[in-house]
């Protein structure tokens, strides 16, 4: 029996991870996923654990290598998008990434910003990052992408306040409110993840 669910996550790492684990607890195993759709099949409750990895800061080749590595460790992986874009033959600049990871194209690394990793539950906690240093750099990678997104939405809202001929239109106000709300939700997540980083950093002063 399969179950199809439509969902989109602003908190694409931890929020999505939590939800997938909740589904697995209820006895639903991820079969495939699309832009906003998740298809589950029935499994025994608590049979699988899920983790979501941010790979948008890596180049396409690098993220493919990483995926291959995870598969060789016995995990099942899925690629997942962050943004809702429906296009082919498109490129994007990612100022928050490193080196070649800055350019994403479709087909290619575009719309494959995340990896969903599935592990058969074996009693041990499912942690992909165990080293404090590594945890911090991992959090920093997607914090940077949220920062960039927040800056973009602030700039967009600021532009609407510039003198223009649409000022009297209701549509402009609606646009402003929507982008503003999106921006605020980014900022909330930025605060959440920065406090996580701060906690880890404090610990890394004395412990490894």
């Amino acid at each position, binding site marked *: 029996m399969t179950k199809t669910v439509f969902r989109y996550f602003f908190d694409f790492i931890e929020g999505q991870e939590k939800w997938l684990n909740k589904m697995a607890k209820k006895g639903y195993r991820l079969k495939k996923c699309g832009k906003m759709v998740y298809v589950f099949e029935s499994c025994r409750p608590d049979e699988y654990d899920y983790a979501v*990895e941010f790979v948008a800061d890596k180049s396409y080749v690098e993220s493919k290598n*990483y995926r*291959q*590595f*995870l*598969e*060789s*460790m*016995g*995990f099942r992986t899925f690629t997942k998008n962050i943004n809702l874009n429906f296009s082919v033959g498109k490129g994007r600049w990612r100022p928050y990434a490193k080196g070649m990871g800055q350019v994403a194209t479709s087909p290619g690394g575009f719309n494959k910003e995340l990896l969903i*990793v599935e592990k058969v539950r074996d009693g*041990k906690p499912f*942690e*992909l*990052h*165990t*080293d404090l*240093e*590594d945890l911090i*750099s*991992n959090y920093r990678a997607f914090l940077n992408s949220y920062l960039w997104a927040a800056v973009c939405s602030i700039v967009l809202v600021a532009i609407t306040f510039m003198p223009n001929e649409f000022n009297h239109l209701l549509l402009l106000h609606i646009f402003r409110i929507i982008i503003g709300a999106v921006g605020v939700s980014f900022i909330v997540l930025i605060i959440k993840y920065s406090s996580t980083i701060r906690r880890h950093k404090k610990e890394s002063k004395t412990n*490894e």
Partner: protein
Amino acid sequence: MTLITFSDILYITVNVMMGEVIVIRDNIKGGALTETTFLVLLALYKPNHGYGIMQFIEKETNGRVTLGAGTLYGAINTLLKKKWIAPIGNEESGNKKEYIITDLGRKTAEEELKRMGELWHLASTIMGGEME
């Protein structure tokens, strides 16, 4: 393979000017390896692949250290870049890529063992008396 940075030169200059002839390497660059790095190096004294490294570390530390796959992947890539380990066989063999420690890696691991020995000696001299 120690890189001398501007801050090192400044540090040495200040020390010489202050009349301190003995140059003590500052502890950030004191050569201490992270536990992850050292354990991965040890796991690669024999050829091993990713999953094997993880199992080796878990077994040899009696489960005290378990490496996450992401952390291990990062560690392998860093060590490859530093040339402390090298891949075996053809690069394209994909899934079960095997690695081995290099001479440079061995040298680094030996230095780490020496550092740990000195630390162990110091600690047991000071703590040893109290524990008895």
